[in-house]
């Protein structure tokens, strides 16, 4: 992308996001979501986030121990921490430290 394209994309992102957030607030007259839509919206975060995470972690980075990519190992360790602690910073810190540690060991 060229830089003007990046700016254009950012403005588009801002408009899309504001349209979603403002939706029911701007049209505040007794509008409600249908139960099926409400139910579906609950599963947007796990579905979308998993669809982003899985290919990103599976992508080979070039550094590996046997068949296991370093980033995949670091991601699995971080995932375990996320599951136990539910903390964003703990997950993030563990993942980066594991990757750095493994990279240093293979040095």
């Amino acid at each position, binding site marked *: 992308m060229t830089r003007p394209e990046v700016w254009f994309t950012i403005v588009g992102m801002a408009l*899309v996001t504001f349209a*979603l*957030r403002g939706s029911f607030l701007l049209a505040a007259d007794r*509008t409600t979501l249908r139960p099926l839509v409400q139910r579906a919206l609950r599963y*947007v975060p796990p579905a979308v986030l998993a669809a982003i995470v899985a290919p990103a972690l599976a992508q080979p980075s070039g550094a590996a121990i046997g068949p296991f990519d370093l980033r995949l190992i670091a991601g699995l360790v971080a995932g375990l921490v996320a599951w136990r602690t539910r903390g964003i910073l703990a997950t993030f810190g563990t993942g980066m430290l594991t990757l750095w540690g493994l990279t240093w060991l293979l040095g």
Partner: protein
Amino acid sequence: MLLGAAPFGLITGVSAVAAGMAAVDVTFMSLTVFAGASQLAAIALIGSGAAVWVVLLTVLMINVRHVMYAAALAPHVRSLGLGSRAAIGAVLVDHVYAFASLRFAKRERDLDRRDYVLGLGLTMWLVWTGATAVGAFAGAQLPPSWQLDFAVPLMFLALLIPSIRDRPGLVAALTGGGLALALAGLPYNLGLVSAALAGIAAGTIADTLLAARRGEDA
């Protein structure tokens, strides 16, 4: 709350620069978009040379949850003017919604709802944009050997795991993640879009089936 926004903003700034974006551009993004997870996804897509409409579609999917927040808060702010409601919409991020919905549920008579939401929201917005700027300008000085581009999948992992709250949620995540892996080769990141939609459908169907079974047992 602010404790979460500051490091998340820092990481967003750092990873944008690692993905090749200009520091000014990602700061502009935080200022105008103000939605962390969707910004991280957009940063990764922009860095990998995706088309504009793919970025916008992905942002739409990640942020569609805000419609739920707006619908939930709308009855509480119906008496406010259009400008106030628009301003509330602009700052209605996850944490602001979480705090506001808890507070509004108490039905306090003397609570100024507009000032409460805008106070929270504007503080978050300033912290978020400031932290992004600091991360972006400092991140530009960091060497590539730090592998900070790994920050993006890690942040998503940190958001993904707590978002799986029940069995239908797990079904949604496994379907979305599995299909995204299988379809990773499709052009225009169509794999991501279709896997996410299939995951949402699978979670909704699982939820409906579980609810029906509970109904029979009762």
